[in-house]
Structure formats: structure tokens, C-alpha cells
């Protein structure tokens, strides 16, 4: 008995020591994390993030479908979920960088565009205006179609508002990205972009619901105009030659 008790008393310090080390380690890590948070908040938003972290951003909405045509091989079927995930991440990375952290824009575009497409896309000046702050994403959605796990189209819509150097802004953005998979990764090689002011931003931004109503009605009127335009085009017929 005596022997076993003495053995237990010998083991105890080891066990206690391990707990102590873990506890100290945890405290140090927590302290470091707190310090890091303090750095960000003390300097305002972090250099890469222009949105107020407390602003609730709209959730991403994704629709992904497979292009019609040839059946997928076993290998392609197995790879499909991975590619779907990669493309979703790609859309998130690009457009969150464009609208919420412009300083990361270059990095995000470099990772996801071919070199020449990136340069050209950047030159269009898409994203938030200069000096943007307190950006609020009101809508972000992506419609992705994947062909044979090797080619994809991404139709991405973002509606954002915020403050900028020249005053409040609100913008509606639609990009169509054409991507092909090469060497295991997806690269955007072509795009179409359409970004325009969404509506006039009132000085006070209290009534978001009212703004939503406005945006809905403006979208409706746009749809109406498009319908008229389409019918005009149809009437015109034309052979183009």
C-alpha cells in the first residue's frame, strides 16, 4: 500500500505539470489574440477590410448546375463536388475582395484570373469607389454552370452601398466570368461586366426597408423597359447583314 501511494504521489506532479503547461499556453494564446484584435480596432478597420465588421453583410446565395451534354465519367463525377466548391470559393474571394477589401483585390484577382484578363478586368474600375467605407453588401449571388468539370460560367450579382470620398454610394454590379480549369486550378480568361449606380442614396440611411422598396420598384421599371426594348428589337427583326 505504502509503495503504491508513494508511486501515485510521484506521478501526480507530472500530470499537474501538463495541465499547468496547457493552461499557461492557452492563456498566452488568448492574450495574443486579444492583442491582435486590439490592434485592428484601435486603428479602425484593418487595412484590408473597409466594411464595418458590425455591419451585417448579405449572405452569399449560390446556384450551381451541371451543363447539359455528355455524361460525366466516374472520375468527373467524383471530382464535381470539389470543383463546385472551388468555384464557389473563387466567386467569394473575388467579389468579397472587390467590395469589402479592395486592398486584397490584386491578390484575389491574381489567384483567379489569367494574367491578361486580370489586368483588363482591373482596368475597368469595378468594385467600390475610391475611399469607400462602411460598405454594406445588400445582395450577393452567383449562378454557376459547370461543363464537364473543366469549364464554367459564373454569373455574379452584387448590390452594395456605403460611404466614399464623394459621398454616399450605391451600386449594382453584374459580372459574368468565363473560367477554364488548367493545371488543377480554375482561371478566369474572359468576362463581361456591367456596374452602375443603383439609386440615389439619401443622406439618412434609417429606413432600409423603404430603400428596398425603391430598389424593387426600380428593378421592376427596368424590367418593364427591357421588355419594351425586347419587343422593339423583335419588331425590328433585322437581318444584320
Amino acid at each position, binding site marked *: 500500500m505504502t509503495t503504491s501511494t508513494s508511486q501515485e504521489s510521484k506521478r501526480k506532479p507530472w500530470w499537474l505539470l501538463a495541465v499547468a503547461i496547457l493552461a499557461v499556453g492557452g492563456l498566452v494564446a488568448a492574450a495574443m489574440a486579444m492583442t491582435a484584435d486590439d490592434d485592428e480596432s484601435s486603428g479602425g478597420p484593418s487595412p484590408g477590410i473597409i466594411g464595418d465588421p458590425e455591419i451585417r453583410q448579405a449572405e452569399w446565395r449560390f446556384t450551381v*448546375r451541371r*451543363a*447539359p*451534354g*455528355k455524361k460525366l465519367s466516374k472520375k468527373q463525377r467524383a471530382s464535381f463536388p470539389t470543383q463546385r466548391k472551388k468555384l464557389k470559393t473563387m466567386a467569394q474571394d473575388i467579389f468579397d475582395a472587390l467590395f469589402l477589401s479592395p486592398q486584397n483585390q490584386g491578390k484575389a484577382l491574381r489567384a483567379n484570373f*489569367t494574367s*491578361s*484578363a486580370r489586368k*483588363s*478586368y482591373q482596368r*475597368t*474600375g*469595378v468594385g*467600390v*469607389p*475610391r475611399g469607400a467605407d462602411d460598405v454594406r453588401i445588400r445582395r450577393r449571388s452567383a*449562378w454557376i*454552370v459547370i*461543363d*464537364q468539370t*473543366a*469549364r464554367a*460560367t*459564373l*454569373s455574379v450579382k452584387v448590390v452594395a452601398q456605403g460611404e*466614399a470620398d*464623394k*459621398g454616399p*454610394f*450605391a*451600386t449594382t454590379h453584374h459580372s*459574368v466570368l*468565363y473560367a*477554364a480549369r488548367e493545371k488543377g486550378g480554375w482561371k478566369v*480568361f*474572359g*468576362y*463581361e*461586366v*456591367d*456596374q*452602375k*449606380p*443603383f439609386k*440615389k*442614396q439619401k443622406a439618412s440611411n434609417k429606413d432600409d426597408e423603404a430603400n428596398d422598396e425603391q430598389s424593387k420598384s426600380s428593378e421592376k421599371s427596368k424590367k418593364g423597359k427591357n421588355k419594351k426594348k425586347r419587343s422593339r428589337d*423583335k419588331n425590328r*427583326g*433585322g*437581318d*444584320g*447583314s
Partner: protein
Amino acid sequence: MAGAPVTGGRVHADHQPKDGKIFVLFLGSDARSGNPTHSRADGVHLAGINTKTMKGGIINFPRDSWVNIPGSGSGRINEALYRGGPELAVRTVESITGIQIDYWLLTAFEGFQSAVRDLGNVPLEVKQGMHDPGGSGADIEPRTKSLNGVDSLAFVRTRKSLPGGDVSRTSNQGRFLIALLRKLRTDIGRSPGRMFDWMTAARKWTRLDIPPHELFQLGVLTSQVRSQDVGSVTVPVRVGSAGAASVVFIQPGAQSIYDRFKKNGSL
């Protein structure tokens, strides 16, 4: 308000030639069914896109054009396909125009009709009706504004009811290609994923020497060219005969068209 509106689109495909011009030969075989590669081509069209200016053009060759077929003597241009398949047709058009062709695409009656059926009606106004029950089977009412698969095939085949015969038909084929471009742009504008429907139709109903990856890039590129920026020109010809055969001779004026097309990639 946010900065000025941004609208635009570009394709930066690695396969694009340095001078920014891509040329594709479209061949329409007269094969009702079976192997279209060794039949005669009733449609011969050289289409080009300038990827820098995003403009394009189509040169239409009447099928009876009397030309030199490389390594095979002289003959109607439509015989090149019969004598040596699409490759010889490409070499023939290259030798006539001096333009290096990047790709070819060949379709026949059944494939053409099925492709249009799969993709949906083609918006093309036919001001004067076409009725050719004995030939192409055309029965298109005046002021028709869109063509289904059957009518589309009839439209590009009809020549007997046209005042200019085969030359008018050739011009109509060029018009049809531009109408297809307009449809492609409308489809992609509504839903970019429709690009894959077009690719599927192309792969299923035509023969082509374009790998899927490049077909995608070429399709995207084409969809960014406005139909009003594509000129369609039928080569000037004079009716004549070669032996007992009734043919047309391409006039010297065509050379300036080839030169302009080669230089600009558009018309």
C-alpha cells in the same frame, strides 16, 4: 454616387493569335445523311473575328465558283470537300484568299436542322416568302420573323425561288450566320450557362477541328462581337461555263475584299 458606369467584356484566351485575328471556315454539306466529309459543300463561308477591335466579317463563296483546288486541278469550290474532306476545302480557300484558316466546322442537312431545333428558333426576318416545294421544300410565309429547324434549313437551301439563284442563296447563308450570332448573344445575355448548350449542339451536330477548351474560348469570344459589327460579303462573280458545266468565275474585285479581311479580320 458610385463612379461612372462600367460596361464591357473581354476574352483573353491563350490560344489567340498574336495579331488578334481568328478565321473559321464554315462548310455546309449537301449530304442528306451519312458521312458529310465526302460530299459537296453547298455552303462555303470564311468567318473572321478581330479580337482587338471585336469586329468580324464573313466572306460567302457561291458553291459554283470555279477555282483551283490544290493538288487536284480546277473545279467548283464545292468539290474540294468531296475530293479531300474539310482539310482540302480549307487549303482551297486559303489558296484563293491568302488567309490562314485556324479552324473548320462542317455540318449537313440533318445536323443543321437538329442543331437549330435544340437551340431554339433563329430570329431572322424573311420579308418575301419562300415557296419551293420541288426543291428545298421551303414554305416560308412573307414577314416571318423567326425560323425553326425545318424552315432554317429550307432558308439556307432555297435558290430556285430567288432572283439571283445560287448567289442570292449564298448571301442568305451569310445572313443566317449573322442571325445565329445574334441569337448566341441574346442567349448568353439571358443566361451565360447557355454557352454550354451551344457547345453541346456544336459537338453533337457538326464536325469540327476545335478542341472543347478552345471551342469554349472561341464561343465566348464570338458572343462578345455585336452582330452589327460583322459584315457579310458575297464574292463578286460572273456567270460562265467550264466545258459543259455551268459555273461562276470569281471577279478580280474579290482580291481587295480578301486583302481587307486578311488585314483587319473584319469587313
